[in-house]
């Protein structure tokens, strides 16, 4: 099941990227070969392939003068972080270890889950967000899963132009947390403003029919 726990694992991974001191970059990619993998991914994969012939490999730690790379190897993934000298190695090692220990079961359940469930979860959270910001907007979303890439659009309508940028940030945050962190997130978030009409205060059907009658009588 894609549940709260998996969301928190995603949040954990995002936290590793954003909030951990000395972490310059985080990465996760499938252990099997990808179509357009980067040079970095390919070389790491080769290294792991070469080494795992001899030893059972769970963690690699590459150290240079001013930086280091922590690499975790799981059944399906290679993940880790590039660190500078400010990083606390023991901490990063523990964090990546925790993610590594859970990512495979998350992945297995993800593969068994219908995209609908993911859509519904994102929808629920968007609704919650809109309710809490007392926004009267509407939203619509549609996702497609293609292997380890999720694409699609989330369209949210807000009442005023002023709300566009904050709402966009919030929705992107939700999507980022809900799209499994091992997937490539190609979901675009589109925030529209509500039809200008509904921003005209005091506009009623009665007012409008008066206008129509007047013009008809001209």
């Amino acid at each position: 099941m894609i549940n709260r726990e998996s969301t928190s694992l995603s949040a954990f991974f995002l936290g590793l990227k954003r909030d951990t001191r000395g972490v310059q970059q985080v990465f996760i990619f499938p252990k099997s070969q990808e179509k357009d993998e980067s040079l970095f991914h390919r070389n790491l994969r080769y290294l792991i392939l070469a080494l795992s012939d001899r030893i059972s490999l769970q963690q690699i730690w590459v150290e240079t003068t001013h930086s280091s790379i922590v690499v975790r190897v799981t059944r399906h993934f290679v993940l880790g972080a590039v660190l500078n000298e400010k990083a606390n190695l023991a901490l990063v090692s523990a964090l990546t270890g925790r993610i590594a220990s859970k990512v495979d079961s998350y992945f297995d359940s993800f593969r068994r889950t219908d995209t609908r469930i993911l859509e519904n979860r994102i929808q629920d959270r968007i609704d919650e967000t809109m309710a809490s910001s007392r926004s009267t907007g509407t939203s619509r979303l549609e996702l497609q899963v293609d292997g380890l890439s999720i694409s699609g659009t989330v369209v949210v309508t807000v009442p005023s132009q002023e709300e566009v940028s904050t709402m966009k940030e919030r929705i992107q945050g939700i999507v980022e947390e809900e799209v499994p962190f091992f997937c490539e997130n190609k979901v675009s978030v589109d925030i529209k403003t509500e039809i200008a009409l509904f921003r005209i205060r005091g506009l009623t059907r009665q007012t409008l029919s008066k206008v129509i009658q007047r013009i008809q009588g001209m």
Partner: protein
Amino acid sequence: MQLKILITGTYNAGKTQFIQSISEIEPVKTEKRIVSHSGNEKEKTETTVAMDFGRITIDDEIALHLFGTPGQDRFDFMWEILSEGILGYVVLVDSSDSESLEQTRRILKFFECVNAPFVVAANKQDVEGAADLDTIRDKLSLPEDVPLIPCVALERESVKQVLLSLLFKVSDLLEE
């Protein structure tokens, strides 16, 4: 309560005429003075920005205002200000001028983000050789649900029909 409708379209499409045909007052011409950079009085250049404005009194409390957009690209920012709080807008097309059609596409695009109800009026239908509705719809790639109304801005009755079709569209939206 003042309700606002914007009348837009390319230069010469008939915006001034459209507003004049239905307004209770003569369209107002607003003038803007531009002082040259040197600030020298004698070098003062003057430019005229014609802004069409019309009014229809509905009752003691309600008035309908019609604003025309100035027809040059450099006034795009004005369009944005003018679109604030509008009930909807009319896009006037000069059916007798094929170049106008091309420019109208840009106007339609510009107003997309205003996200207000609109109708397109194929103006100057009385002119010989004017493009017919099908041709115009096709050239503008107008979706079927956008009303396209034949129009002769010189005639009040025709202008009425255009405004009414916009108002009915607004009314439908309010009902939803």
